[in-house]
């Protein structure tokens, strides 16, 4: 049995194909429904996000399995097969496991360390369990994936640092104010980036917003979007008295706020901190404002500086994460190897049990005078004899399962106990380690 992973992502596929992937992402019919048509595929897991499509499956016949899944993917994306083939990757066993761990930890993401991907994998796994397309191996693998991703998140700082300008602004605001929910955000002007930052603040629970704009129409439009009240541009400096965070992005050629304007108002504010995020070019707020006590002014370059620093930090953390992933991959491989001896152990136990049952029946039929207590005692006796006799061979097999020589021992055991004569038991999906 082998684990395969077939897929494509933002690194291997160009934009036009990624657009198709994005459409696949929104599709209603789940490709897991197609599993019955894939004869060679045993367990199947499917993940699609806007940047990737991944099929993870187990098979006993690698080439057929990959072929079937490729066809499935071609059908799904709806592009010619040659075109799809050019952009996808196939990983087998150890590589597949490592790739999955990397994806879940955010190492394979466009923005390294972004946290959404783990949630997407969890959703995809939930669907796979609903369609009952995952069994022992993939269940175990995906649970392991979740724990690896969690380990990477807690043991490295990969997700700790903001890597977009608007998010860096939100992080800074949190460092100044702590809880943002009871804070008031003012939007001055309506640049695209300011709107994005405003969205981020809303995401952090800010509900109280004020919009200031020269054109009333735009102000009203923004006000509706953010459920904010609007203030005329002329009243802007006085409106500063009861806000905490100010996002500036007007096209004004001259600063709209100077230190002299602000100083007396800070006294009226009882020095409550005020945080200016100036993402306008040229800048809207006089840099001297930053020198006033309890006033913090960050412009676009300051924020970019933080982001650059954080990105290099993340790359550094990614190396640590890679080390965690490599060790976890090896551990998973060891578990996977024990799977090879499991059918033999099951067969051994089954054979012993069937002999025990047959002999017990014979003996008991010859001794009709026995009471229930005696019958039970004989049952327990035979059972423990078999258990003790099989204990050492089973431990031996499990120990050899991580060695290269295991095939030899497995075949030797099967011959010794004559296990292949009877119908070899099919691998049961419910049994994890015999």
């Amino acid at each position: 049995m082998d684990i395969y992973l077939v897929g494509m992502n933002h690194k291997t596929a160009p934009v036009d194909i990624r657009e198709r992937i994005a459409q696949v992402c929104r599709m209603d019919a789940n490709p897991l429904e197609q599993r019955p048509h894939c004869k060679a595929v045993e367990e199947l897991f499917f993940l699609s996000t806007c940047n990737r499509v991944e099929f993870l499956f187990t098979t006993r016949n690698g080439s057929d399995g990959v072929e079937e899944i490729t066809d499935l993917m071609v059908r799904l994306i709806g592009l010619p097969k040659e075109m799809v083939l050019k952009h996808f990757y196939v990983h087998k066993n150890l590589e597949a496991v490592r790739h999955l761990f990397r994806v879940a930890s955010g190492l394979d993401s466009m923005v390294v360390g972004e946290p959404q991907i783990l949630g997407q994998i969890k959703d995809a796994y939930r669907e796979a369990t609903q369609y009952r397309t995952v069994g022992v191996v993939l269940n175990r693998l995906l649970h392991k994936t979740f724990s690896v991703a969690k380990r990477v998140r807690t043991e490295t700082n990969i997700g700790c640092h903001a890597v977009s300008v608007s998010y860096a602004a939100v992080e800074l605001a949190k460092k100044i104010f702590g809880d943002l929910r009871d804070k008031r955000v003012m939007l001055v002007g309506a640049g695209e980036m300011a709107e994005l930052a405003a969205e981020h603040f809303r995401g952090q629970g800010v509900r109280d917003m004020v919009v200031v704009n020269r054109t009333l129409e735009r102000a009203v439009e923004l006000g509706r979007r953010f459920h904010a009240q609007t203030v005329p541009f002329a009243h802007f400096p006085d409106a500063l008295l009861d806000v905490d965070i100010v996002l500036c992005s007007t096209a004004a050629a001259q600063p709209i706020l100077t230190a002299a304007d602000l100083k007396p108002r800070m006294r009226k504010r009882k020095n409550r901190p005020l945080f200016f995020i100036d993402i306008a070019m040229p800048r809207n707020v006089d840099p001297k404002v930053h020198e006033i006590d309890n006033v913090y002014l960050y412009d676009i370059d300051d924020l970019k500086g933080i982001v650059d620093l954080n990105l290099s930090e993340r790359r550094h953390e990614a190396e640590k994460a890679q080390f965690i992933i490599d060790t976890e991959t090896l551990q998973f491989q060891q578990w996977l190897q024990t799977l090879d001896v499991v059918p033999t152990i099951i067969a051994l136990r089954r054979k012993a049990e069937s002999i025990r049952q047959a002999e017990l029946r014979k003996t008991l039929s010859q001794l009709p005078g026995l009471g229930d207590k005696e019958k039970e005692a004989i049952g327990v006796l035979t059972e423990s004899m078999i258990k003790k006799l099989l204990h050492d061979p089973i431990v031996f097999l499990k120990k050899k399962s991580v060695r290269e020589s295991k095939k030899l021992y497995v075949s030797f055991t099967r011959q010794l106990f004559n296990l292949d004569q009877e119908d070899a038991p099919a691998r049961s999906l419910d049994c994890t380690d015999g």
Partner: protein
Amino acid sequence: MGQGMEHVLLILAACVYCIGSVGYFVFLVRNEENVHRAALGILVAGAVFHGTAIVLRSAAAGHLAVTTLSEALSFFAWLMVVAYVLIQNRLRLRVLGSFVAPLAAAFMFGSAILPSHMIPATPLLKSTWVWIHVSTLFGANALFAVACAAGILYLYQERAIKRKRLGPLYGRLPSLERLDRVNHVCLLIGFPLMTVGLLAGFLYASTVWKSPWNWDPKEIFALITWLIYAVLLHERLAVGWRGRRAAWLAILGFSAVLITFLGVNLFLKGHHTLFVTQ
């Protein structure tokens, strides 16, 4: 018997505070929640040992065991740890432990070095006034110590944000607003406690020495300290001082506390040294 037990508990508490300090240092470097939880647990255990020792000693002496400088330091360390644990519970300020734990450990060692023979129970010390005087003042001092630590953290964090160079501790430190709030809360509770403590002292002094004010060095420094905190509280409530200035004043105030508490006892003579030098 009781004294041996008490010694064991004190040594245990000192060791536990040291381990807690190491835990908090690791937390400062690694920022792991588990480490913090362990360190906090260790600190709480230390406070329990320590508290038991203080109770035992007070019971043996017949008055609150704060009459020698050694006892006073130990009692102060205990109150500080308790104040931190309470603040951690209410306001979640984990990084503050990195200051409080080593400070408590240091005080414990100071306490161990100083002579610690027990003062025989005198009627002078048995008064309820002394009890009120000492416990409120020590409580206030412990809160001021926490406020001072919060002030130092505030200044560090504020400077990083103002200079736009976010240092390595940036991710660990709490928000400015929360640090400022700790400063505020400690002051709001600490200042009335201190006032009550000083009043109790004056009242008792007037019954014992016939005058509430005796130009005792400790009295003078205590009054200076009280004035510093009075200014801070006034500016905070009336003028709206906060942030950097408040943090500086909290640090200044605690320096005055240390001078009153340690400096005067060690180097100057007065009513309070009456007990200490015996």
